């Protein structure tokens, strides 16, 4: 959650009239627990721990090269996870991001080859934002369940991508010295351009979610949609906006990946929706919505990436990657639950 919203308890002046709302002190969580409950701190801690252990075990682990690779390789899913965080905080879910990612690549390459990098960006944002708009309208205005709506677009958009590429027969690529390719392959201070774009987007949306009325509205709608409606918020418009942002960001991520690969692939990014959800959850955002942290999501994304580096260093069969990721997911969510003092059921 955002500054000031971390649930810290301010000491109250004793003795003033109406002092009945004082919480019994025995129920107060310890400072440590409260710190860990702060969204994302647990993921960040785990990340630091893994990094320290990895660095101690293998000298190549903490090399700049490794950092460069891990960050670049995960910047795309990272951008996808931003939109996913917004949607989840608003109480929804978006399963279509993987397909939209592929669409973004195809549209971006088409746009670049028919008018240059600006057209590529514009077309990607518009086309993928339109998918988000469709999702958002079906969810917000027609009252359909987000899970099933975006499941349908997961299928439908992938079909559209096949249609556009003639089932992969028409592959489009871009010249590797074009500005478009630079977006994916260029480096600043030896780090890939997508890494900086992702960091910039994280910063921007961190502020949006935590410090703007729109972000507060997103959190409130996730907390209680009916209350948000009765309080006069434009619930439907905000919901639609989150899906539009999510679609557009997934498309942009796909476009950047296409730029890195200097070509678009229609089969890319299957299963990204689950990876993004996993990253968001590991980052401490509850799937029930209401609050969430982009810093946590960022930590979650990098954490999953670092696990992959671990597997490489351990020389394990890559099949173990999924087993370890799955196990790790369980450990993290169980930890989060155990740290959560409020009783369940």
């Amino acid at each position, binding site marked *: 959650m*955002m*500054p*000031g*919203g971390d*649930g*810290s*308890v*301010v000491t*109250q002046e*004793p*003795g*003033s*009239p*109406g*002092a*009945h*709302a*004082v*919480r*019994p*002190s*025995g*129920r107060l969580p310890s400072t440590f627990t409260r710190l860990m409950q702060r969204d994302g701190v647990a993921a960040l801690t785990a990340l630091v721990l893994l990094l320290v252990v990895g660095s101690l075990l293998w000298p190549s682990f903490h090399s700049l090269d490794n950092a460069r690779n891990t960050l670049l390789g995960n910047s795309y899913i990272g951008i996808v996870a931003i939109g996913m965080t917004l949607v989840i905080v608003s109480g929804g879910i978006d399963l279509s991001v993987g397909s939209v990612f592929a669409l973004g690549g195809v549209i971006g390459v088409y746009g670049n080859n028919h008018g240059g990098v600006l057209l590529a960006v514009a077309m990607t944002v518009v086309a993928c934002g339109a998918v988000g708009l469709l999702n958002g309208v079906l969810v917000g205005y027609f009252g359909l369940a987000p899970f099933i709506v975006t499941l349908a677009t997961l299928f439908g958009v992938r079909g559209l991508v096949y249609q556009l590429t003639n089932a992969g027969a028409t592959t489009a690529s871009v010249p590797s010295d074009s500005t478009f390719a630079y977006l994916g392959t260029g480096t600043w201070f030896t780090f890939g351009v997508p890494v900086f774009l992702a960091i910039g987007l994280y910063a921007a949306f961190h*502020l949006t979610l935590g*410090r*703007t*009325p729109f972000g*507060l*509205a997103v*959190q*409130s709608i*996730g*907390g*209680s949609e*009916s*209350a*948000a*409606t*009765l*309080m*006069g*918020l*434009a619930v439907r418009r905000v919901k639609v906006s989150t899906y539009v942002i999510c679609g557009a960001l997934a498309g942009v991520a796909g476009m950047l990946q296409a730029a890195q690969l200097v070509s678009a692939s229609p089969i890319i990014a299957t299963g990204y929706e689950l990876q993004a959800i996993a990253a968001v959850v590991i980052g401490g955002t509850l799937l029930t919505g*209401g*609050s969430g942290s982009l810093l946590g999501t960022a930590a979650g994304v990098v954490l999953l990436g670092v696990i992959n580096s671990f597997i490489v260093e351990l020389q394990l069969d890559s099949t173990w990657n999924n087993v370890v990721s799955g196990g790790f997911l369980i450990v993290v969510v169980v930890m989060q639950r155990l740290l959560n003092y409020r*009783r369940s059921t």
Partner: protein
Amino acid sequence: MTFSTDPGSPPVLEARGVNKEFPGVKALDDVSLSLHKGEVHALVGENGAGKSTLIKVLTGVYPQDAGQLFHHQVPVTFRSPGAAQAAGISTIYQEVNLVPTQSAARNLYLGREPRTRLGLIDFTAMHRAARELLDEYSIRADVEAPLASLGLGTQQMIAVARAVAIDANVVIMDEPTSSLEAREVETLFGVIDRLRARGVAIIYVSHRLDELYRICDTVTVLRDGKLVHTGPLAGLPRLQLVATMLGRELLAQTKRHSESDEQSEGPYAEPVLEVRNITRRGVLDNISFAVRPGEIVGLGGLLGAGRTETGMAVLGAQDLDAGTVAVDGRVVRAGSPSASIAAGVALLPEDRKLEGILPSLSIRDNIVLAALPRLSRAGLVSDRKVDEVVATFMKQLHIRATGPDQKVGTLSGGNQQKVMLARLLCLNPKVLILDEPTRGIDVGAKTEVRVTIDELAAAGLAVLLISSETEELVDGSDRIIVLREGQVTDVLTGDRLSEDELVRAIASVEPDTSEEPTDD
């Protein structure tokens, strides 16, 4: 204390010939209402009469099927609650309508947040303003803590503060006092007086007649979705108001202890419920008491005193740090309501919506839920027995519905409460814990519920009655245990069983402390 309103002046807000139906129910049938500047307008009626629906139509939550709204005599259509709010109509809906995961400050300023020069939200300013606002209404709460961590009453007061802080010309309050205690009710009335002085028009819904007569100028009575009376309140006799609401006379009501003192002290009756030294760190501190068959024991105290927690502990809904609960002399396992229920304990939860009803299931499923084990054999449910039980209780408790298949979520609050009662009664319990059993139910139903409780006690049940209404507690109990910060501070019996004594016992431990409890 009626302020001079001006009925001759043009109405601020007016509804003409409003109709609204839900599948199977005509909730509003040709209802008209006009609201004038500086007027406090009572809107009353039985549970399910259509009060909340009218308010929702007035404020853009539901579109009406027919009829027209006028705001300052201009025909209007509010497409959303937001639109009504923007037009200066501020509403406290019947459900507590704040976002539980957000802080009090954010709830207060949601939609109109103070901004810094960069256009970002200025949380420092927001928190400062929120603290000032809550101080103004004597609400003690941490403005940065999530709302869900505050008590129900505090939440309700924050909802009031939010509604009033919006610069409004109409303020609508749907049962604002149902979860408030006496002191907060006074604060609220102060607020209403100030609003009235500013010329704000107010619609006030409550089932508590005392309150209506204290603050309202006009009254509109709804029955079965139809308007049956509208006019000045002063001069309208109470009994006549009630008769207009119900369409019949009220049941006679008795004061319990005046006539049953002796029999409840029967020396032979062994206690059926024995609570010994139950302790839950920070919440309950070494509480002991016993309830005999046929006895109604009241639990009194301020909000957060631990009454609900005590009830939950007796039901075994939570683990205890120490102490035991015994039914019929046998200790019941803590942490397992099913064991307690099997032993004969039943509890009516305080928060009907969150802890009571299964909204999308039928009345039938709701009633038999707890009794399933005894209505089935070898894990298979007997439809015949279920139908029998459901029919019996729907009749006995006068549950108004299209049939046993109606979803409970679509019933009015009072009827939901009766469904809850039916769920407990078909268990044939020995010990009945009733947590705020008459909260939010109309006068007719309230007397029915109270009479039912008396009958149950007479039939030999042990009843633990939790209520924030001192009158209900005093009239309905044989003995009142007063809790404060999780400790038993007093037990009222015999002569001390009066409202004055109860208020004094609840407010302070030492008789000399005036009104400031020495808390920390």
